[in-house]
């Protein structure tokens, strides 16, 4: 028994850097303390252990943040992250909701991960991640503090995501100068990725335009046990048992994993053919045991004629994007930047450079910088 454990631990350690290993192992251990066999969750201990950071209206590395209560009835908070501008390096408290000034400003609505049960918008790891997104994409990021399982089951998380989407869409100060519209992207990791998909579905029926979905290791599943689940169970800090626990905690009682929330293209799923679903960027880690479901998701989108780009990071484990110390991290951040900026060309100069770049297959940003000397 001890030997089998040893083998598992060694495999995981070799796949990632030491800091990453310490971080995800720590999470794994802490999370094991919180899940009770009877399906309840030790919420007090979870909140005690979660490392949180306050919002900071003083820019740090060019990004400032503030919290907004989006819905009083459900105490739905969101943390807004904005880039500090050259003209306004030190925003004052009355200026936090000052209108965005650029031609096009992407607004990324971000749903943190945690398998529907863990973490918050003000968790340190996610605060750091959202700040990175602002810098990378020159975007405003709205991180939604959605209600969590098991206290709040399906569809609470989706409802909160939907409330946030409506709120973002109706903020005059988030409208891009170019067309007085809010340029919205939905993004999330793990359960957040799942939420992004389902909120995008709701958006279609309502007529709110979502420009793109970014799904990082999205959490999907199904009743069947897939090959990757069997092969990778317990190998890289995630077990089938814990995956099952979280689905039981989120899905309505009595439902199985073929519920469409968990398995959107499964037997109870819904066809997206003929529907104007946003383009998707889906990042799958090759060492993630639920990859078969994530790949099935990508296939499902493709079969329905939807635009989707798959980034399969063969050597990556879950959580790889939390720390910027791997090639995977940089590849993914580059792709996200391209995904978001392809709709947001700021100047004619950059547009020209992009065309030249495409023709010459070079990085147009580098070219532009060279051009400027």
């Amino acid at each position: 028994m001890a030997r089998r454990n040893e083998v598992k631990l060694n495999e995981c350690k070799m796949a990632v850097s030491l800091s990453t290993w310490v971080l995800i192992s720590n999470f794994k251990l802490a999370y094991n303390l919180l899940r009770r066999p009877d399906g309840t969750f030790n919420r007090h201990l979870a909140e005690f252990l979660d490392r949180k950071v306050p919002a900071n209206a003083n820019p740090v590395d060019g990004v400032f943040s503030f919290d907004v209560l989006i819905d009083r009835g459900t105490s739905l908070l969101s943390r807004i992250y904005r880039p500090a501008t050259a003209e306004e390096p030190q925003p004052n408290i009355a200026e936090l909701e000052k209108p965005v000034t650029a031609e096009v400003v992407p607004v990324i609505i971000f749903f943190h991960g945690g398998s529907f049960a863990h973490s918050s918008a003000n968790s340190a790891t996610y605060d750091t991640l959202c700040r990175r997104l602002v810098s990378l994409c020159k975007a405003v990021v709205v991180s939604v503090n959605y209600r969590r399982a098991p206290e709040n089951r399906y569809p609470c998380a989706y409802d909160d995501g939907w409330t946030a989407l409506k709120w973002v869409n109706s903020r005059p100060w988030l409208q891009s100068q170019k067309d007085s519209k809010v340029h919205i992207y939905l993004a999330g990791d793990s359960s957040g990725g799942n939420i992004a998909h389902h909120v995008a579905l709701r958006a279609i029926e309502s007529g709110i335009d979502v420009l793109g979905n970014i799904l990082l290791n999205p959490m999907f599943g199904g009743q069947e046990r897939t090959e990757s689940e069997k092969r990778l169970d317990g190998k890289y800090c995630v077990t089938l048992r814990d995956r099952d626990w979280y689905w039981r905690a989120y899905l309505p009682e009595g439902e199985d994993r073929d519920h469409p929330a968990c398995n959107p293209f499964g037997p109870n799923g819904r066809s997206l053919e003929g529907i104007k679903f946003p383009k998707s960027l889906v990042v799958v880690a090759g060492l993630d045991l639920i990859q078969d479901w994530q790949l099935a998701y990508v296939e499902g989108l493709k079969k329905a004629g939807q635009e989707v780009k798959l980034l399969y990071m063969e050597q990556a484990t879950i959580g790889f994007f939390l720390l910027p110390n791997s090639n995977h991290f940089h590849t993914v951040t580059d792709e996200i930047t391209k995904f978001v900026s392809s709709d947001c060309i700021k100047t004619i100069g950059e547009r020209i450079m992009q065309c030249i770049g495409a023709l010459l297959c070079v990085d147009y940003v580098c070219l532009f910088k060279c051009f400027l000397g």
Partner: protein
Amino acid sequence: MLRYDSTSSSAGSSSGSLSSSSSSSKPPQQDIDGLLAGAGYKVRSSELRQVAQRLERLETAMGNSPADFSQLASDAILYNPSDLACWVDSLLTEFAEPPPTCSSDFIVDPVNNQTVVNSAWTTAEPHTPQVHQNITYDEQQSLDNQLTVVTAMEEDSGIRLVHMLMTCAECVQSGDLSLATSLIGDMQGLLTHVNTVCGIGKVAGHFIDALSRRIFQGMGGGSVNGGSAFENEILHHHFYEACPYLKFAHFTANQAILEAFDGHDCVHVVDFNLMHGLQWPALIQALALRPGGPPLLRLTGIGPPSPDGRDSLREIGLRLAELARSVNVRFAFRGVAASRLEDVKPWMLQVNPKEAVAVNSIMQLHRLLGSEQTRNSPIDTVLSWIRGLNPKIMTVVEQEANHNQPGFLDRFTEALYYYSTMFDSLEACRVQPEKALAEIYIQREIGNVVSCEGSARVERHEPLAKWRRRLSGAGFRALHLGSNAFKQASMLLTLFSAEGYSVEENEGCLSLGWHSRPLIAASAWQAVPAWDNHMSSS
């Protein structure tokens, strides 16, 4: 406010010779792994490998006996999760111990080498998930709908008001009093278009008043925090009832004091501001119930002298004595009347060298901060004699705000943000007159922060990060508040208060906030033994 306090209580102090850390041989801050710091963890790069090994061991141990692990989860008291190395160690130690069989079990906290008893009265409750049940949901809903309608309509006016307040404050700072005056007039006019019953209108009104007083009456502002001691006590009591901030303060401090007093038969609590003594019945009862029986409890209550011959301190003392008698706790009370905390001298407290002393300061230390950082300012004097008492614990609760900045505009901005949040949280209170009087209590604080200067300005709140540095520099080290205190604080909130409050743990200290903005922070301290200083100052 910085996101990360890079000079935490466990590392170098900002002011010279005194060592602040529990182990003075800790290497400098540069060694902290930057990547993990971004995730909220403090791990030294040099220790990373060791931490990884310990995590591995823990994982193996967990795999081998999962039943013990879930036992650990419900019974263990955990401290300071940011310090990964220590946290993992404490879990490992837990795991290596035999499962608890009686109520007087020990858990060694490796950070402080302190033994903490897993007391009977803090053990686990039934495993019910924390379901947010809004019993009066319908009432809440309709009131909230009203609020949202109101705020939507007045959003523009509200924003204009905030802009004007900021501009006015700026004028006051730069000395342009004529413009400031006309702005006051404009704002008062605008107030008539805005709902002053709730939301921005209400808080703006108080700030306009405070600014107005500053401009027209100068900065003696005596009338603001004036009010008799009697009035202040009444307001304080209603503030206590209307919202959970003071309850949280008392509750958390009592928990820490109780733990610190474990094993001592003679204990002495020094309360820096007795008021109605609301904090102490709970401690008296807890001591009555502790395994092994209660100690002899002495309480020294400090408070302002009462006019017209009344001895209000003694009256409170008598009531507490009556309670103690009813639960068989040997109790002695002493009142120390002083107009200002800095007038108190240690000999007045008559501390016995054999007793375990707890010094309790609920929102008092900030009053000792002057505007000038002179060498023997009141705060230094008082901290020095506290240290001289060598208390087992000093519990400190302070407003989590930066209201002592030298620049007026900065202070004003911070106060506007802070008190808006606090007023917003007060909206959830439905009982009168508690709510109205609590608002007056807060209003007086606002008045002092905004319209007073010099010795009249006593509400000199500073954030926890600053208190950490100050207390470390004065020869104290932090005693960490653990997961049990956290859990009880969270449960207190669900019992007494509306949704929207949250408790957070921050490197061994607990804070209570509204909608993720911390408003009040509680910490516990102990004097670093004198010989440690000699070691490190060479």
